[in-house]
């Protein structure tokens, strides 16, 4: 559908996306020129707000980015001036940088064509000094261009809580003495891992939101995919970036089929596969196939490969479980994670039989991270059901239902127990 033909709403959506795509570019330009990441970030939000109010009536300027940079600069110089005044009042001493200095630089900033500092910005927002929750909030605002209100709505917290989290994150970055530069080569892999993990968490947060109850969160999947696409444009040869994008596309492809109209969860095996998004599956599969053939192997690629096996099975019973078992074995070698072992056990049960799967659960019973986890109990319930142990399965479903903190998961687990 051509969004422009959708009338007013489509136009507003397009405008919002256009603005948000500019957000990291405008912020980078301001930070490069003035420094002061925290205030520059504030100024960009205000420039975006000004644009969203003026452009619909006055029209989009010929050079939208130039307009935003100009308005942002003006706002930033105001902020710097009042910051200086505030500090002068507090410290009662003259500061080295007189406010005139900021004015003298003027609002015109030369923006070298083709320069894209989005990665530098992502590294800063996903700084190791921050908690995951703060990294996510800051990334969505500074790189995604979302407002604090939008982020707060997605995470179901009051706007004031989210505002505090974001300013706290900016203060922590400042205290850590971090500057707007690419991390040194030696740190880059680890820092890139943190960036990808944050994007993955944003996706997950949206994906797990059930369709009926929490529409705002569901938009986070779209946002995460948009951000990863942006990273991929900058790093087309990075296999894990491709792998993560593929994983998101292949997982998100199932979104229309994974819940009922009333938000009831539908397990993979029972989903109406005609409702899966074919284009996303084709794109995801091509991405992961290409990455696997020419880049260094990594966990996102393997997870995407597993999702691709599911995505290309026409019916649940056509699933190539032997292939999935093999992929989980690879994944276990490169990322030691009890959740991977749990999923491996499911795949083994499907490929070989429930007894073999149940045997693989035993070591997880003594794993501190897993032994009280509802998913371990839910998997046990499924495997016991497969093996014909009705009583055992019912007890495990009920225990899993008591342990989960998710309403849709609890409803699903109770209904499985009821059906036995």
């Amino acid at each position: 559908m051509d969004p422009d033909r959708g009338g007013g709403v489509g136009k507003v959506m397009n405008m919002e996306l256009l603005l948000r795509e500019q957000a990291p570019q405008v912020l980078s330009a301001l930070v490069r020129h003035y420094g002061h990441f925290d205030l520059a970030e504030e100024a960009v939000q205000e420039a975006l707000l000004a644009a969203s109010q003026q452009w619909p009536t006055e029209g989009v300027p010929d050079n939208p980015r130039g307009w935003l940079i100009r308005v942002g600069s003006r706002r930033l110089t105001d902020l710097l001036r009042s910051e200086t005044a505030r500090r002068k009042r507090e410290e009662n001493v003259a500061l080295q940088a007189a406010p005139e200095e900021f004015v003298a630089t003027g609002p015109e900033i030369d923006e070298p064509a083709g320069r894209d500092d989005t990665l530098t910005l992502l590294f800063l927002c996903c700084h190791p000094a921050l908690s995951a929750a703060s990294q996510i909030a800051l990334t969505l605002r500074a790189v995604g261009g979302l407002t604090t209100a939008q982020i707060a709505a997605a995470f179901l917290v009051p706007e004031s809580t989210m505002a505090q989290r974001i300013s706290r994150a900016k203060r922590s970055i400042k205290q850590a003495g971090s500057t707007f530069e690419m991390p040194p080569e030696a740190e880059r892999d680890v820092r890139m891992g943190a960036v990808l993990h944050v994007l993955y968490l944003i996706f997950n947060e949206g994906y797990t939101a059930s369709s009926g109850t929490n529409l705002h969160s569901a938009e986070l999947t779209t946002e995460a995919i948009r951000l990863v696409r942006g990273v991929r444009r900058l790093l087309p040869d990075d296999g894990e970036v491709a792998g993560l994008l593929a994983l998101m596309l292949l997982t998100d492809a199932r979104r229309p089929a994974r819940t009922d109209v009333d938000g009831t969860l539908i397990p993979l095996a029972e989903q109406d596969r005609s409702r899966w998004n074919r284009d996303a599956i084709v794109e995801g599969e091509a991405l992961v196939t290409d990455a696997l053939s020419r880049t260094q192997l990594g966990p996102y690629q393997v997870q995407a490969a597993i999702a691709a096996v599911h995505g290309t099975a026409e019916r649940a019973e056509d699933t190539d479980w032997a292939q999935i078992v093999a992929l989980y074995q690879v994944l276990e070698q490169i990322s030691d994670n009890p959740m991977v072992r749990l999923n491996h056990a499911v795949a083994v049960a499907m490929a070989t039989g429930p007894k073999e799967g149940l045997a693989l659960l035993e070591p997880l019973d003594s794993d501190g991270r897993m032994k009280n986890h509802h998913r371990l109990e839910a998997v046990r319930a499924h495997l016991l059901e497969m093996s014909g142990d009705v009583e055992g399965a019912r007890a495990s479903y009920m225990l899993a239902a008591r342990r989960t903190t998710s309403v849709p998961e609890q409803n699903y687990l109770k209904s499985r127990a009821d059906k036995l």
Partner: protein
Amino acid sequence: MTVRMVTVKYMLLIYSNPESWASLSAEQREGLARAHHDLTRELTEQGMLVSSAGLADPITTRTVSVADDDSRTTTDGPYAEAKEHLAGFYLVECDDIDQAIDYAARMPDAKYVAVEVRPVMDTSGLEM
């Protein structure tokens, strides 16, 4: 394949009983107020506090129950016959339960009676 949410909301339920409250010295009561003031400020600054409140003495409680024929009975006093009562709560967003437990442990109430930490149910869910 992590399935964990980034943050989970936890309810920190503060329990008290009339004896423990009555036996507090003025100094201890001040300490209690200060500790909660500091904790609230810190949780707010961290962007973790969703909501918090202290509850009035159970003597002010009214308990309502509705029968099958929709008739209503209201009684004075709390529902449960227990020595301890709920005295207040914090709703916080934490990385995990251990972080929530650490905050609960900082409340002097944990020393006088106890603080309960319970995850809040979520409307998100993952296909199984």
